[in-house]
């Protein structure tokens, strides 16, 4: 068995809407091993995206701890957490979230602006990442000039360009047609197998989750 890279320890999360406390996750504990492809499934409102956000360090639990590669990220302040995310996490969103004013190249280059890499080195990294997602020929295209599947591939290139340890994907095929969804899932599988990326993916697409090695089901904030 490989090393545990993510440890979610007794995590609970509630949101406040006006004066009402809405529990979303209730005492969840999960271990994710290095190189694992974990699928999180569940109906809408089950708390799967919230759990993903906690693992990615873009939200904080109400109770419990989240340890990633030995770092308890719940203890980091905002700026340390931002820095940690830029080094360790690649995020793939359902709606791609590319910047419309930037080309595919520039969108992928964005996370590298936070590094000390030179322009030439950045160019090399971006071209490699776009090559991995088979979009070397669309490098200077703007998002509006790409199909949904291509946009998602650019988003994946952006997620991997800094060579993060973990990829988190929130419904990566949720906005795509069947064929494009399949291409994206094949790409994520390749990243997991060939590039040894640990992937945590939220989906309620049964076909998508087939690529995951481990699947957890969430319902009403609890693992089932």
């Amino acid at each position, binding site marked *: 068995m490989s090393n545990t890279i993510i440890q979610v320890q007794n995590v609970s999360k509630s949101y406040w809407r006006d004066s009402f406390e809405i529990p979303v996750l209730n005492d969840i504990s999960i271990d994710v091993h290095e190189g694992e492809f974990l699928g999180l499934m569940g109906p809408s409102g089950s708390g799967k995206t919230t759990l993903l*956000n906690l693992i990615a360090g873009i939200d904080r639990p109400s109770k419990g701890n989240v340890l990633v590669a030995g770092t308890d990220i719940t203890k980091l302040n905002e700026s340390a957490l931002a820095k940690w995310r830029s080094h360790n996490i690649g995020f793939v969103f359902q709606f791609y979230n590319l910047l419309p004013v930037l080309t595919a190249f520039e969108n992928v280059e964005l996370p590298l602006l936070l590094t000390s890499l030179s322009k030439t080195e950045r160019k090399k990294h971006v071209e490699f990442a776009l090559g991995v997602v088979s979009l070397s020929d669309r490098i200077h295209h703007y998002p509006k000039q790409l199909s949904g599947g291509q946009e998602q591939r650019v988003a994946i290139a952006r997620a991997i360009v800094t060579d993060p340890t973990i990829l988190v994907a929130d419904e990566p095929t949720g906005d795509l047609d069947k064929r494009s969804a399949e291409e994206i899932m094949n790409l994520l599988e390749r990243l997991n197998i060939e590039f040894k990326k640990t992937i945590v993916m939220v989906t309620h697409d049964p076909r998508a989750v087939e690529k995951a090695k481990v699947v957890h089901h969430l319902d009403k904030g609890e693992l089932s």
Partner: protein
Amino acid sequence: MRIFKLIFKNALRHKLRTLLTIIGMAIAVMAFCVLRTVVDMYYAGLDATAANRLIARQAVSFIFPLPYSYRDQIAKVPGVQTVSFANWFGGTYKEKKNFFARMGVDAETIFDVYPECLVDPKEYEQFKRERNSCIVGSEIAKQYGFKVGDIIPIDGDIYPGKWEFVVRGIYKPRDKVTDATQMFFHWSYIDERMKQDMPGRAGQVGWYIIKIKDPSQAATISEQIDAMFKNSSNATKTETERAFTQNFISGFNSLLTAMNFVAFIIIGIIMLVLGNTMIMSARERTREYAVFKTLGFSGGHLFGLILGESIFISALGAGSGLLVTYPIVSGIAAILPKGFFPYFFITPLTLILAATAALVVGLAASIFPIQRALRTRIVDGLRFIG
């Protein structure tokens, strides 16, 4: 790709909106500069005053004359270097609209007390020799095409009758604030005719211009001069040239204050225009800012992005405004009668104020968007539907 490129691309994302904002700012900056220039030019007379010049006028009002005989008495006051005098002539050159200052002066001393009016020594000697000659400023010479040897006909009003003056010299201003729109001629030429036609008005001058040796003695010398004529029928009020000019301008104070106020209100308006643009832009980009944060960009980066965009737009607006202001101010200067505004130009202070205002507007307009971008939690931002 650099952050600056991103700022540039963001600023031009909604080209029409950005263009309208830039045009709005440009018009506002232009209006601000023109208003400030008008106000500045009213006060510019103060810049042209000299510390070593006193003006003695009739104590009741500037419009009442003083006896010519005061001249020698004033000259005896310790500290006085030169005493000169002038007399407002009025009159019309061809048409009423051709307004410029026409003054009967003491030909022997006038350029001694006004060294900033530079005149060729030969022309000056010729002027002194001819009783009906005059010297005109280079600005009006240029405007009306006056040349040495020309005769300038004036229809008198304060001093009735037809008058003719031969141009014997053209003076040039020493600097930008020196008035080059005046016409000087011999006071004695007027006085001679007054002696013949209106003896009661002979021997009178408008005001005395007193050059003193030590500017720090201005108050003492003024008091001494006024004390000499205190109990006469023509008491004097002597003050520094600056104080005299200030009193003269004070009649327009309310108007100038209102213009100044409007100029700064305009700055407030452009702040709202740019603020509105920035708030709309930042609101539309709520999700993008959340993505930036997710990728590891800090609050400082977002601060720089939004502030940079705001300042970029305000700088473009201010720059365009200033570019159009110069030809507009030149155009206004060309159509204004020279006598009303002897000089009309944008002062460095106005430029600095406009540039500072643009910077402040850029900063202020970005405050709310920055606050919003920083306060919005990533998870809320990612869920935002604009």
